[in-house]
């Protein structure tokens, strides 16, 4: 075996990306927990965590560029490093959106009751987290089929978003006083829908990694 240092750098790069993804997953989970349980301290902590994700992005990006510059990766290494360079942009956006969800939650008055029971929104979050988790697992295991399943799973999140939107429109129609909170919840649902899109992008890069082709 030659190029041991290079091998180690590639391994470390992959590990860092997995760590970044785990941090993003945690942020979504905590932002939804904070929303459901009206936990302002937790929401604040999520907003703080975004810095950590940004830091991951900068560090990983630097490593990718350095590998391109110094090692000129080809074949599988090339596919992997380019995929990671693209994936971390999606992960960073996911982190931003989890932080945005927490910020919106903090904007809703502590004493104000929710205008609806939060069922579909946590379900959207659960699905989006599942998609992220699966996309990363498919990356680790180089599992093409699993990556394809992530892409298919996006439809379900889109459907949940449609349901939430309709429900909120009805609530606004029923009582104009619901409008402010309805718009907040609508934004949260939209962020979750976007997070699922980013997970889909990640899965597409996993497919590129395996095949050299983007779906």
């Amino acid at each position: 075996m030659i190029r041991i240092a290079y091998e180690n750098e590639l391994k470390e790069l992959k590990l860092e990306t997995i760590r970044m993804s785990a941090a993003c997953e945690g942020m979504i989970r905590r932002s939804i927990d904070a929303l459901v349980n009206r936990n302002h301290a937790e929401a604040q902590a999520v907003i703080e965590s975004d810095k950590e994700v940004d830091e991951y992005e900068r560090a990983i990006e630097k490593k990718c560029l350095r590998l391109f510059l110094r090692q000129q990766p080809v074949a599988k290494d090339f596919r992997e490093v380019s995929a990671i360079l693209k994936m971390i942009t999606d992960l960073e956006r996911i982190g931003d959106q989890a932080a945005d969800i927490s910020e919106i939650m903090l904007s809703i008055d502590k004493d104000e009751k929710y205008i609806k029971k939060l069922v579909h929104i946590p379900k959207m979050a659960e699905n989006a987290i599942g998609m992220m988790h699966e996309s990363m697992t498919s990356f680790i295991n180089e599992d093409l089929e699993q990556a394809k399943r992530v892409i298919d799973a996006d439809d379900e999140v889109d459907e949940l978003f449609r349901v939430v939107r309709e429900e909120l429109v009805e609530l606004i129609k029923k009582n104009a006083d619901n409008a402010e909170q309805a718009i907040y919840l609508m934004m949260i649902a939209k962020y979750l829908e976007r997070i699922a899109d980013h997970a889909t992008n990640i899965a597409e890069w996993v497919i590129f990694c395996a095949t050299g082709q983007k779906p």
Partner: protein
Amino acid sequence: MAQSNPAVGIRIKNLNLFYGDFQALKNVNLDIYNKEITAFIGPSGCGKSSLLRCLNRMNDLIEGCRIEGSVTIDGQDIYKDIRDVSLLRRKVGMVFQKPNPFPMSVFDNVAYGARALGIRRKSELAAIVEESLMQAAMWDEVKDRLHKSAFALSGGQQQRLCIARALAIRPEVILMDEPTSALDPISTGKIEDLCDRLKKDYTIVVVTHNMQQAARISDKTVFFLLGEIIEADETDKIFTNPAHRQTERYISGRFG
């Protein structure tokens, strides 16, 4: 829009090459396309230079060398249909690893082939020399010292002079055996630019140990190992997603 597929210029079929008891090439089958750059890559001793030398019968000069199978250029089997090797070498020019100008002036180097073909008229020779040096992108550099010794040129210029000399006999194919391995990065860049320009008019086959060079300049890449072709494909495909593990390991520098 109809896409024009390049035509096969050189067809190698079931080629085996032996140096005495040693088999250097094993059942090689390969199509090389016209007006493209094809790069041969592989570790030392893998047979890539041996195959290159089969394409203009340079191996004929090696004692104990035996060749089976066929190499067809423009529909002619170069081992069966062409008796006069010099006719073949008019069609298939060659550039070597180390620049090898003849010990004569720049002008005479380039005019050498034309003179050997019987061209004597000064104006005609001058036109051939100028055109060839232009094509080799070095006319401006040497036009004022055409009658100085070729040895006065830098290594990179000498190599381009050798390319000009090869172009002067108007070949169809140019074979290059590690043409830049003895050159600095600037001269290497000039040769690579030159290859890119020349492929409009010529079919180029280049042996290189420089993987990045193969990735930069070639349209097709052929990977050899132990006398066999492991993989031949579009260069982008080979360097992004090679089909064979051995290719992957070699191009990513993990071979061993």
